[in-house]
């Protein structure tokens, strides 16, 4: 009887020693594919839907103020708009690119070419266009008369993202202000300016530290 208990006790110790290694065990994956911004990780910072909201507001402003109609009445042509790369003063990268692409795409979808024309001012495109023009002028490539001049913008559409970020270690609190303005390139007149404010608070697990 004693021997059996002793053996049991020893096997228990051996088992428990091995079992203590479980302390560094793997956990099952909890990763899920995110198709929708709504089901993404809850955090502070801008969301894709915030950018869509701002885009909607800008498009509405252009419509309400009849920018295109007034311009056409004066010049009998659609105004040319250049979207200037947004200034990002938040702590979140990648916002400007997404916003700019989204804004230009949305505007081109909602307005016809008779209402607005858009000038592509991305630096890589500018470099490619410049090289193409040089090749045409040198006779290396064919050209068509009257298509040699790059579009001069009538309006600059400019945006800026600012943020007030605070943390107490447990929560991160970001108030993001999206401002945008339409500027007349001839007179630097501010045609309109607006802002859109969004506040986000996210909880951080204190146990991470």
């Amino acid at each position, binding site marked *: 009887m004693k021997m059996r208990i002793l053996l049991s*006790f020893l096997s228990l110790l051996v*088992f428990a020693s091995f079992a203590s290694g479980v302390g560094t065990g*793997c956990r099952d994956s909890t990763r899920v594919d995110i198709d929708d911004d709504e089901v993404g990780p809850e955090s502070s*910072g801008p969301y894709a839907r915030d950018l869509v909201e701002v885009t909607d507001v800008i498009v509405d402003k252009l419509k309400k103020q009849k920018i295109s109609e007034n311009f056409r009445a004066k010049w009998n042509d659609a105004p040319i708009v250049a979207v200037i790369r947004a200034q990002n003063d938040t702590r*979140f990268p990648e916002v400007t690119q997404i916003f700019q692409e989204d804004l230009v795409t949305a505007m081109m979808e909602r307005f016809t070419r008779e209402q607005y024309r858009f000038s592509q001012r991305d630096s890589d495109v500018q470099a490619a266009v410049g090289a193409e023009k040089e090749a045409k002028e040198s006779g290396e490539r064919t050209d068509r008369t009257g298509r040699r001049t790059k579009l001069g913008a009538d309006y600059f559409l400019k945006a800026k993202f600012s943020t007030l970020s605070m943390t*107490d*270690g447990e929560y991160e609190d970001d108030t993001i202000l999206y401002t945008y303005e339409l500027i007349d390139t001839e007179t630097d007149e501010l045609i309109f300016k607006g802002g859109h404010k969004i506040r986000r608070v996210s909880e951080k697990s204190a146990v991470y530290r």
Partner: protein
Amino acid sequence: MLTKMLRLGAFTLLPFLALGCQSVYDAKAAMREGGYQRVMTDTMDVESFPERDQTLILNYRAHSKMALGYHESATADYLRAWNIMNHGKGGGVAGAYFFSERQKWWMGDPYERAFNSWYLGMLYYQLGKPEDAMACFRNAIFVDTGDLKQGEYAADWLPAFVMRMRCFLSRGDSASVQMLLDEISRLPKEQANYDAACPWLSVEAQKDANVVLMLELGEGPFFTAEGHHGSQRVINQGEYREAYAEVFCDGQSLGRSYKIGDTFFQAITRGGRVMDDILKGKAIAKTATIATGATAIFVGAELAAHGHDDAGLITAGVGAAVLIAGLLMNAEADTRGNALLPGETHLLMAKLPPGKHELEVRYFDKGGSELRGMRQQGVPCMVPEQGDAALVLRSDPRYYIPRESSLIKADPYAHLKPVKSK
């Protein structure tokens, strides 16, 4: 009956044990064996690592890609890690209360998060995306700031401040540069943190320079688990000899570098962790539980030996359960940390004529003797007509600054992928 109970318990827990576990990737050993190339190859398949370690692995992979010149690919990895470290809620916290702290997803200490943001910012800056860079440098400062109302630590790691100044200058915003300089001037002049004699902490010096060299020296801090059941996380300083660098361009000295960031100082000045108290409690509980369980088994065995079989079995059974719980409880501190970070970050700024230049970087120890094995020659530096050239360079001859744009955009694993037949 006792044997039956044991068998049942063992069979129940066997699958749990059989799962096994990979230990965390040893980046330092990989660096010794095959340098950045080895790290990049080892970390190619991030998904093959436990999910809790993947953010750390992503940082390693990004770092090795950056060091080999694959800047676009490194940016993608740093951004992926950035998203987890800044937007993710992590996981494995509940398990960490009882089992090892390593159950938690690695999210990095404040200085590791700051480095992640800063490297991402430097890559954006070099790739001509100053707005994204600006956001990263701002975030590097944000994540390195505690609850100021509670008197916690404020950001005092200068590389993020300096690069933010460069972004403001690219917008022509000198007033904001001055605002940042004012913030720096309010920091304690801790020699352990940065060299206050650094000559580029003025608006004029910032405006005058068109070359920004961020020189990374030595090895960063590392963690060990010490004390009662390894429950105390100790921060150790990395060992290295290099103390400063001197940079030459076309045979002319551009001057010496000045320390603007000390990683060990950052690591030890970010306050205690909530987890430290939990681990302390776990260590005490572990000892008490093991002692209680062992005593109960002994008493149970004695009772059984004296003819009290039932009472003995019950006591021993309860004791066994308590003992197992005690042994399973893991109070060891998490020693995971980004082992590829440098010990110090130095700054050297200069003004060079626009165009292509080649730099030579010499590293010196505290006594002023050159460490010849570290000398780097032919470091390409392309100074633009407008703006500046900003480089990150490590005191490791294997660190490569790309001179060809094709490498910057290249897929580092392209040669390992099978070619599709048409």
